[in-house]
């Protein structure tokens, strides 16, 4: 871990056009303060990668509402009518990925695998343009790794080294995204001294985190 920055500083570090992974599941466990700062700075042309686009007033939904986003890779956009509308008008490009495949593609990107073979999506539109590999008589799609310029995580606790914990269903995509971006920024609910989080409770080692977002003012 390098330093502790404000949400505004984090938003300023992220250029227009960047690709960003966002933790969160319908807004639960999403880095809300950095999202607000991205909206405030008027970010444009972002590619956002995450489970869903939440709701127009929640989580990454705010980015879509504010016109910050050009591309979406997600498993579900049904809870955000604005995503739907902008997709139809062509303002937004949306790639839908099955949820488990999205998680594994991000994992592959973060742990140095060239791809994974999954049964999910075989015989569906998801298989279009993809290589199908037969293993012992079963068919699998070859799915490619996913990485991004930035990963914006919401954590529960962080210590001064950047070690992170998560809380209940707010973990969701956050832990895997910590592996898969060139710059990882974590927004914890609380920052505690080194030693407060025992080694076995650490769910994201601090070596993966580049910046912490400073405590709530």
């Amino acid at each position, binding site marked *: 871990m390098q330093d502790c920055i404000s949400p505004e500083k984090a938003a300023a570090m992220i250029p227009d056009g960047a690709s960003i992974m966002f933790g969160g599941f319908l807004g639960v466990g999403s880095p809300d303060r950095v999202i607000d700062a991205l909206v405030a700075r008027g970010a444009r042309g972002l590619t956002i990668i995450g489970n869903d686009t939440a709701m127009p007033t929640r989580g990454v939904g705010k980015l879509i509402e504010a016109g910050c986003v050009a591309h979406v890779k997600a498993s579900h956009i049904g809870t955000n009518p604005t995503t739907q509308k902008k997709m139809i008008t062509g303002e937004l490009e949306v790639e839908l990925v099955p*949820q488990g495949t999205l998680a594994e593609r991000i994992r592959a990107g973060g742990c140095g695998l060239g791809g994974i073979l999954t049964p999910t999506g075989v015989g*569906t539109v998801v298989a279009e343009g993809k290589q199908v590999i037969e293993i012992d008589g079963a068919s699998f799609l070859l799915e490619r790794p996913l990485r991004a310029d930035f990963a914006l995580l919401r954590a529960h606790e962080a210590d001064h080294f950047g070690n992170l914990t998560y809380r209940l269903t707010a973990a969701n995509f956050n832990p895997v995204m910590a592996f898969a971006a060139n710059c990882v920024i974590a927004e914890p609910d609380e920052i505690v001294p080194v030693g407060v989080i025992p080694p076995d409770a650490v769910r994201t080692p601090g070596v993966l985190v580049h910046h912490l977002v400073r405590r709530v003012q």
Partner: protein
Amino acid sequence: MRNAKEIIARRVALELRDHSLVNLGIGLPTLVASYVPVGISVAFQSENGIIGFGAPPPEGMESPHLTDAGGGFISALPGAASFDSVTSFALIRGGHLDMTVLGGLQVDASGRLANWVIPGKIVPGMGGAMDLVAGAKRVVVAMQHTDRGKPKIIEKLNLPPTSARRVSLVVTEMAVIEPTDEGLRLLERAPGVSVDEIVASTGAKLLIDGEPPVMPIVSAENAA
């Protein structure tokens, strides 16, 4: 007479096995949790990352970090385990999920399910549905038999399939149907529904061995 959704949920509940891990889709399938038979211990998974969740907590006691896959507040039961999305789908895809109950738009004669998109309409996305159908040991479709009078069980899907895999069972308010190598087998009919009525409401050939038994359902008294 009970309404269609309740009949379906009560019948699907009889498919629950002791010591099993089950994932219920959003909507109708969620109702199944209300009719777990007495003596059956089921662990429910929510794919956003928990096994062992319960009913919404009392007003004011919700945790912002604890919701189900539909975004609704839930509680955690003693012995619950929480985990991230990678682990959640490792459970689903790896064959550790004994059963998933999903809603359906169409099921065809080959047993394939369409339940994620209607071309030309709003595109919600498949969410976890494709992984659930590909990975769960048993896939039970819980859906109404017809949509505004039109059969949802048809010869060949005209909506995009959710998976190439055949589902295990289809439960409607009229019938219980099992897709097999030979075709769709009519296993049970709902109380007060005749075989002729089922056939008339179904757009695919049904395999019928004599008069099928009447659908048992979990009664109010038997639900835990």
